[in-house]
């Protein structure tokens, strides 16, 4: 059962008041709020069994190590990966992408090789590739996008060739809420012996992800965008590829044998997790995934579909709203402009009415340019948002337009 009232009460921040009034949180694409279960789990770690993992021979360390490793199983099952060692804990999506750029590309890319990147990627899935390809003298080729911000498949098919060694794409756009056809992209890429990294930052809180059926080579996401703590994320990689990867960081528990003059690396996954990890964060992420599972993606998708439909028709009904997309989004993300008004002005006045939205370039300046804009107002919803909030949002928008 999907009881909205109960679900909202799971998230303590949603009952916060500002100037004695409740607030509307429509910035879920930037970060989601945290259910009490996640907060409790983090608190519980520090209160009851704080200890370093994989090191101590005592009861506290046993407990934290077990909980940490259990979370790896939770994430493996969440992504439907085959093996626990294919799940690497990172500080977030950005670190995951950087690990592939600087620890994997360098193992095989030659000068003149090509990397395909969607024009709609956010900075975290563009800048690391730019820097890595500069160093390796490889070339980044941009992939055109359709009017809804997804990869134009005919352009992709034109550009893939034997020189293309890697493709980096987002699963769902943080601007348009539309989804790339990952399965087809991976299948075509593999016919040309190219690898694919999928940035799942905007996907994992909205739909179930199956890396096995997508057949992507790497998949990454951030914990804080799926109800978990900040500072924790995941890199999934196929085992044979992770084995080829060189770590970016060295030290801590990632070693095999160490002498003063030499060291050997340990096994997966520790090889790629140098130093003491964000143990509380990882355990909190496990609680977040358990929370998602307890709701079930069928329920989440249904609730978000209803919200998206309502939001879409409300915005479409307003004359002076220019949406960034032509078709309703697959996940409830709405980037738009009020004609003739700067997105910053809209965001500022919405904030006065206790409505949190994102404004500006949305960490994706090239993508914003691609959509012929200089910045958007972005309202990104989540299953805990309500139809009433959409109604309040629309009347607030009308008030903003009147004031400006």
């Amino acid at each position, binding site marked *: 059962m999907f009881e909205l009232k109960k679900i909202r009460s799971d998230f303590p921040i949603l009952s916060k008041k500002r100037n004695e009034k409740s607030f509307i949180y429509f910035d879920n694409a930037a970060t989601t709020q945290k259910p009490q279960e996640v907060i409790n789990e983090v608190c519980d770690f520090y209160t009851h069994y704080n200890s370093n993992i994989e090191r101590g021979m005592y009861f506290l360390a046993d407990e934290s190590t077990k909980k940490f490793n259990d979370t790896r199983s939770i994430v493996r099952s969440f992504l439907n990966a085959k093996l626990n060692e294919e799940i690497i804990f990172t500080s977030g999506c950005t670190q995951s992408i950087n690990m592939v750029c600087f620890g994997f590309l360098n193992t095989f890319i030659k000068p003149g090789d090509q990397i395909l990147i969607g024009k709609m990627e956010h900075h975290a899935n563009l800048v690391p590739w730019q820097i890595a390809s500069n160093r390796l003298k490889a070339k980044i080729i941009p992939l055109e996008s359709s009017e809804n911000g997804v990869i134009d498949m005919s352009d992709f098919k034109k550009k893939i060739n034997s020189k293309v060694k890697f493709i980096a794409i987002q699963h769902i756009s943080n601007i348009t809420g539309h989804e790339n056809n990952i399965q087809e992209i991976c299948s075509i890429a593999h016919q040309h012996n190219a690898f694919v990294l999928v940035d799942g930052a905007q996907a994992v809180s909205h739909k179930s992800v199956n890396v096995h059926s997508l057949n992507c080579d790497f998949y990454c996401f951030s914990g804080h965008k799926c109800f978990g703590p900040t500072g924790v994320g995941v890199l999934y990689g196929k085992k044979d590829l992770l084995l080829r990867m060189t770590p970016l960081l060295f030290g801590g528990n990632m070693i095999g044998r160490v002498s003063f003059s030499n060291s050997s690396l340990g096994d997966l996954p520790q090889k790629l997790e140098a130093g003491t990890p964000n143990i509380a964060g990882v355990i909190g992420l496990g609680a977040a995934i358990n929370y998602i599972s307890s709701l079930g993606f069928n329920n989440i998708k249904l609730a978000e579909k209803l919200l998206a439909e309502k939001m879409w028709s409300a915005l479409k009904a307003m004359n002076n709203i220019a949406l960034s997309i032509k078709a309703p989004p697959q996940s409830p993300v709405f980037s738009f402009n009020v004609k003739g008004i*700067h997105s910053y002005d809209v965001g500022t006045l919405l904030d006065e009415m206790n409505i949190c939205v994102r404004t500006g370039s949305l960490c994706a300046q090239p993508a914003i340019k691609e959509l012929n804009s200089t910045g958007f107002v972005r309202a990104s919803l989540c299953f805990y948002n309500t139809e009433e909030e959409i109604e309040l949002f629309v009347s607030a928008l009308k008030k903003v337009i009147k004031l400006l």
Partner: protein
Amino acid sequence: MSFEINKSVIVSDFNLFDSWEERYEHLIDLGKSLEPLDLDFKNNSNLVEGCQANVWLVCEIKNEKLNVMGDSDAIITRGLVALLVRLFNNCSVKEIIHTNNSFLDEIGLNKHLSMTRSNGINAMIKKIHEYCLNYIKK
């Protein structure tokens, strides 16, 4: 005109309004009444970094007094630029370098207009201060 007089005029203007809507309307009116900056001045060197909207500030000192012009592509930010122009224009350089950002509280901007934390007003004030400090150093 001195900074203190300019400030008290701005403070009493804002005190006329009871609601946030009225305060913003006032700020937006200020923005609308600001003389637009000539296109030639809207270049990268006049751009103030640290603002979400584009803000350009052009400072000039004549007879030890500051003349400041500015513009923004967002109307609320433009209102804030207008406010700073009213506040600092024709003030002596020596006076300006001794002011600090606490006047934002006195005007009631921080209290009443919650957006001031993110709109780059501090970056704008810093730019004006730095211009005056550099002038004095020379």
